[in-house]
């Protein structure tokens, strides 16, 4: 299915240019001009990918993006398991995001953990007209009464809250006081703010800073500190990702004192300023709080990548470089321990996947982070783009991609369909909204937000699953059936 391997970089670049020109032709002039800035081809040696990013989506084009609420409730706050997160406003937002993100956790749901539940103030017309603060206060009272083991509450604002002038901060403060200093966090993540999920991440990070950290200032650690205490930042434990990462950090001799935010707890958030190092997986969604902890508490942070053995080994060594020889030796020991497993996985799958071409379109991290894992299997990423990446993401992407890679920022449904039709990759990795479009076209697909209900994909254990899943997507017999029409 792929284009001939012998195709030169120049040919590919020329094809990409034609392809971009072709899709832009269909847009009204004004829109074509705006979209042109988001589409391009990576030129080796350039500091970024040559596209604009993190600007408003264009009305009517079928952007894949979500909203700030999705970034705060759906991504950052939702996985904190022992707090109750109120979807504050009408019923829909909480309903559509209810348990949809596979943030795995250990707990007793409904009793001491609440991740896969939908708490909402279910706004009615009268709440819009008269304001919802009184209702919010009552919602909190009822949460405290019916869910007494909750360790805190967050208010995840939906669009109307900011428009009708509700004072959720005042309600939160008053209720916190009434309930003996209970952590109650108002979050101004109304869906109309910003241009994507991204601002929701930032707002959620800031809410941790203002409503969790500041309260802890000056308090001693609740556990005996060690020189090897680290926090995992920006791992949402999709299908257990944070667990298959944590196990490696612990095996190399580090002590993980907190997970942000997959399988996380309020106690872990509060403990994080006591860490010696923050290890950051999803830079896009949690660089803000990492920078804050660096500035205020002097905690260094290091980005890492736990997709595929090459990047895992590189990352383990990078993390270890912040510690003494004990940890450095530990990293080498871990790498050596898993080497046979990795060899076995690559031996089993590489021959089945070698040379296969992949196109990606994911959120703010994976469009670059998973490339190494594909390359470990002999596959090649020929196109990639971010739903809500910023320019610093596109800069970081240059370290991963090859000359001539097709780049598409905030891709529209139309563009993505056309690109895939022309480039003919062997696999597309994107989200649920894209999955069935490409499968209808006969192109194998994996959801790269939810791991298509599989996972984990992080860490060595995860890479085995990743390899298995990519193989089963690409080499499924169904694609031969869908392409052939044997009927007379």
């Amino acid at each position: 299915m792929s284009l001939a391997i012998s195709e030169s970089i120049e040919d590919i670049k020329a094809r990409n240019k034609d392809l971009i020109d072709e899709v832009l032709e269909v847009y009204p002039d004004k829109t074509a001009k705006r979209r042109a800035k988001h589409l391009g081809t990576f030129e080796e040696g350039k500091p970024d990918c040559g596209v604009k990013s993190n600007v408003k989506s264009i009305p009517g084009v079928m952007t894949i993006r979500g909203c700030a609420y999705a970034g705060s409730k759906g991504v950052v706050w939702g996985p904190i398991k022992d707090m109750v997160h109120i979807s504050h406003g009408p019923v829909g937002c909480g309903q559509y995001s209810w348990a949809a993100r596979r943030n795995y956790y250990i707990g007793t749901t409904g009793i001491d953990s609440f991740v896969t539940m939908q708490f909402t103030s279910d706004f009615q017309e009268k709440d819009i007209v008269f304001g919802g603060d009184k209702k919010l206060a009552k919602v909190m009272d009822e949460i405290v009464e019916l869910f007494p083991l909750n360790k805190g509450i967050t208010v995840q604002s939906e669009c109307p809250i900011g428009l009708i002038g509700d004072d959720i901060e005042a309600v939160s403060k008053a209720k916190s006081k009434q309930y003996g200093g209970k952590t109650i966090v108002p979050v101004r993540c109304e869906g109309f703010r910003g241009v994507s999920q991204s601002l929701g991440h930032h707002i959620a990070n800031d809410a941790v800073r203002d409503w969790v950290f500041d309260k802890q200032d000056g308090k001693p650690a609740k556990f005996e500190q060690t020189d090897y205490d680290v926090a995992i930042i920006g791992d949402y434990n999709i299908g257990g990702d944070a667990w298959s990462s944590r196990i490696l950090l612990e095996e190399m001799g580090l002590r993980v004192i907190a997970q942000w935010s997959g399988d996380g707890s309020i106690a872990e958030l509060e403990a994080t300023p006591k860490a010696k190092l923050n290890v950051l997986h999803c830079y896009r969604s949690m660089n803000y709080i990492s920078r804050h902890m660096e500035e205020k508490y002097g905690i260094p942070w290091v980005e890492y990548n736990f997709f595929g053995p090459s990047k895992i080994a590189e990352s383990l060594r990078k993390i270890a470089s912040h510690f003494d020889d004990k940890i450095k030796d530990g990293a080498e020991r871990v790498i050596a321990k898993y080497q046979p497993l990795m060899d076995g996985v690559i031996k089993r799958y590489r021959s089945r996947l070698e040379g296969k071409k992949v196109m990606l379109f994911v959120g703010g991290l994976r469009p670059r982070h998973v490339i190494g894992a594909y390359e470990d299997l002999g596959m090649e990423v020929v196109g990639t783009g971010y739903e809500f990446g910023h320019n610093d993401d596109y800069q970081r992407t240059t370290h991963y991609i090859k000359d001539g890679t097709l780049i598409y920022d905030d891709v529209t449904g139309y563009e993505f369909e056309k690109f895939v039709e022309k480039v003919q990759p062997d696999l597309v990795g994107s989200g649920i909204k894209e999955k069935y479009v490409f499968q209808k076209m006969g192109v194998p697909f994996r959801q790269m937000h939810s791991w298509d209900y599989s996972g984990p994909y992080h860490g060595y254990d995860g890479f085995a699953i990743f390899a298995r899943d990519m193989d089963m997507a690409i080499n499924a017999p169904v694609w031969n059936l869908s392409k052939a029409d044997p009927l007379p």
Partner: protein
Amino acid sequence: MTQSAEHILDHVDLFRQPEYKEMLENKRKNFEEPVPDAERDQVREWTKTWEYREKNFSREALTVNPAKACQPLGAVFAAVGFESTLPFVHGSQGCVAYYRSHFSRHFKEPSSCVSSSMTEDAAVFGGLKNMIDGLANAHALYKPKMISVSTTCMAEVIGDDLNAFIKNAKEEGSVPKDFDVPYAHTPAFVGSHITGYDNVMKGIFEHFWGGKAGTEAPLVRQPNEKINFIGGFDGYTVGNLREIKRIFELMDVDYTILSDNSDVWDTPADGQFRMYDGGTTLEDAANAIHAKATLSMQAFCSEKTGEYIAGTGQEVVSFNHPVGVAGTDKFLREVARITGKSVPEALRKERGRLIDAIADSSAHIHGKRFAIYGDPDLTLGLAGFLMELGAEPVHVLSTNGGKAWEAEMDKLFASSPFGKNCHAYAGKDLWHMRSLLFTEPVDFLIGNTYGKYLERDTGTPLIRIGFPVFDRHHHHRYPVWGYQGGLNVLVWILDKIFDVLDQNTIVASKTDYSYDIIR
């Protein structure tokens, strides 16, 4: 390390391995400040009590695990049922990402819909510019025959006027002047997804029948012999609408399905992506005014639409999602009465076969106690069928059901001895249901995918019927309407009953009896 290249463990088994169990236990103990087990267990037991139930039922503000979505979802559902129609949702873009995901997770199909992507500046200045640009872009890119506009709560709160905005956009040349852009205001803080369905349906007929936004003279009804059929918001729309068409064809009825989304949510995998497929043609939508009558399968999904249609002089007959023999009988009697057609032998045979199936299996269902939750019409249809089977729909709950629904349910309960101890719960959620299942247990629960949490907490086996169903595949391709549909529902219920029976008797050397080969 238990992972191996030969036998790869994913999340299902990986985290039960000793190294992970130990790691997770240490995490909990050392860093989570967990609630002591005894206290957790005490609270867990307390939530099962009558005392907790009373507190739970006295909630006034908090909603926990509701079984309803918001208006705009229903708006999109209705819109995609028309030929080459692109739903355009005016407001924040994140909402559209949610609707599309939600439908794709249920139907396992693409779900196309655009947003006007309003942000802070639109919140201040209004979304007119977004409408103008959005319509132009959507029209150029996706080449629809019609764009159906609805709203999110953001656009509603700031008070955007769709009628004026669309006019404006047409004047700006976003779409041709005669291009069909019906609209409906669908505030998320009023009603639920079924209200949004109703509003969009009404908006579309108002558009076609009322003179296409002033561009033509309103249509004058010239009655013909056709009948219109409205399915309502329905997770089984693919199977159901095809079944209804088959029935109408068997009866030789001249019909129009209004909003036929059975093809767009069931497209073949043959190498081509169809953004649009099938649907009610725009011509048929316009001509539907001339029909003799309109049948709505779900009264609560079409309150305003039905009223509007009745206003044109048509007879409007509404049902409550009929399931089973008596429900289908009633439906077919009305079709026959209105059209003057008789019910053919083929359908009579299907009726007889369904009754035969019920007779064969009734002993396994008779006297079983059920809890049901879902949309108002669906719960009425299912409760009616259960009573027909000799089962008792003990708790029937509808988050988006109101007083009128509760009255209908009470009437239904009163119509059968099997409804004697049954109760309807309007406006309640699945956390209320949890209390009901603990304090007054039943044998089986019928509901959507989210019922699996109730199944886990209370041990009540779940039969998945409703919307959304995310974790079982392809059930939406089967009808639940008509005698054939009744048979499907019967089989789904029976399969669960037998599975549970086998599960209860599968313990070796303890229940080697009762684990029967013939049931």
